[in-house]
């Protein structure tokens, strides 16, 4: 762990302890938020990483390269959107998954589409959105944002992700 992070965590823990002892309302709220978010992560992350581990050992590199790699064409983007729609847990699962896809040879444009689409059109979230804001609202969002996500962003400029 980096020193910057260690300092941040120590400060944070100290602030929480001090605030809770003194009875500050804000630190109780921060602690409550921390607990809520951690609980949410604990519910999502173990499964996500197990699935990513299985993906790593079972899916062959050549298959990813063929369907999502440089020579994949428009269908690659369609796969990316479909994969995103069924991703559970949102962006926190999408990041490590995108990283695995990259290691297996997917191109950056497809990965960008995948990450963006997993923020926009995950199926459970969409149902939620439409029920609170209306189908028309959701439809406009899909129709405008999805085409904008399909593109060769970041490709051919030598951008690379960390291995």
């Amino acid at each position, binding site marked *: 762990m*980096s020193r910057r*992070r260690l300092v*941040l*965590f120590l400060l944070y823990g100290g602030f929480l302890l001090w605030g809770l002892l003194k009875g500050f309302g*804000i630190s109780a709220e*921060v*602690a409550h*938020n*921390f607990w809520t*978010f*951690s609980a949410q*992560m604990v*519910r*999502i*992350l*173990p*499964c996500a*990483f*197990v*699935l*990513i*581990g*299985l993906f*790593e*050992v*079972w899916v062959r590199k050549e298959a990813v390269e063929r369907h999502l790699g440089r020579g994949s064409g428009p269908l690659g983007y369609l796969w990316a959107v479909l994969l995103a729609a069924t991703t*559970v*847990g*949102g*962006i*926190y699962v999408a*990041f*490590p998954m*995108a*990283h695995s896809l990259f290691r297996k040879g997917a191109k*950056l444009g497809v990965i*960008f589409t995948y*990450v*963006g689409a997993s*923020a*926009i059109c995950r199926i459970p*979230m969409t149902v*939620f*959105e439409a029920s*609170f*804001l209306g189908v*028309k*609202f959701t439809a*406009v*969002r899909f*129709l*405008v*944002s999805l085409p*904008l*996500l399909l593109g060769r*962003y*970041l490709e051919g400029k030598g*951008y690379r*992700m*960390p291995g």
Partner: protein
Amino acid sequence: MKYFWIFTALVLLISALVDRQKTLRALEIALKRFLSILPAFLEMIVLVSVALALVPPQLLLGLLGGKGRLLGVGIAAGVGSVTVMPGFIAFPLCGILLQRGVPYMILSAFSTTLMMVGVLSYPVEREYFGPRVTVLRNLLAFFIALAVAVATGLVFGEL
């Protein structure tokens, strides 16, 4: 979320039945990856827990309602970019804002940047994508969100 666990367990079971060696390696990879990214996740949770306490929903309501429309879109996009919120909190909140008369295009800017742009999730994203790709991806997502907001305004006759 229960189904997610059941699904994972089933896939794991099938994998183990077909090839125990590979499955063990998968679990090993899963654990290693998880432990190496854990500090970044912790940092994000720390930042989000503080940010949400500093910016409670009532304050958001005040920020997003009442202002001029285009200014409202700008503020909404800014707030949405900085804040990270799970969907099960965000959309009910948008529902409340809608009932209070906040225009659709402002809600669109808010909810889209909320989902697509993550200033507070930068620690996690950087670990995976590197700083440059992370910044570019977020910038692109921000402009897509603005485009969506404008389109929403046109469709709902708010512009």
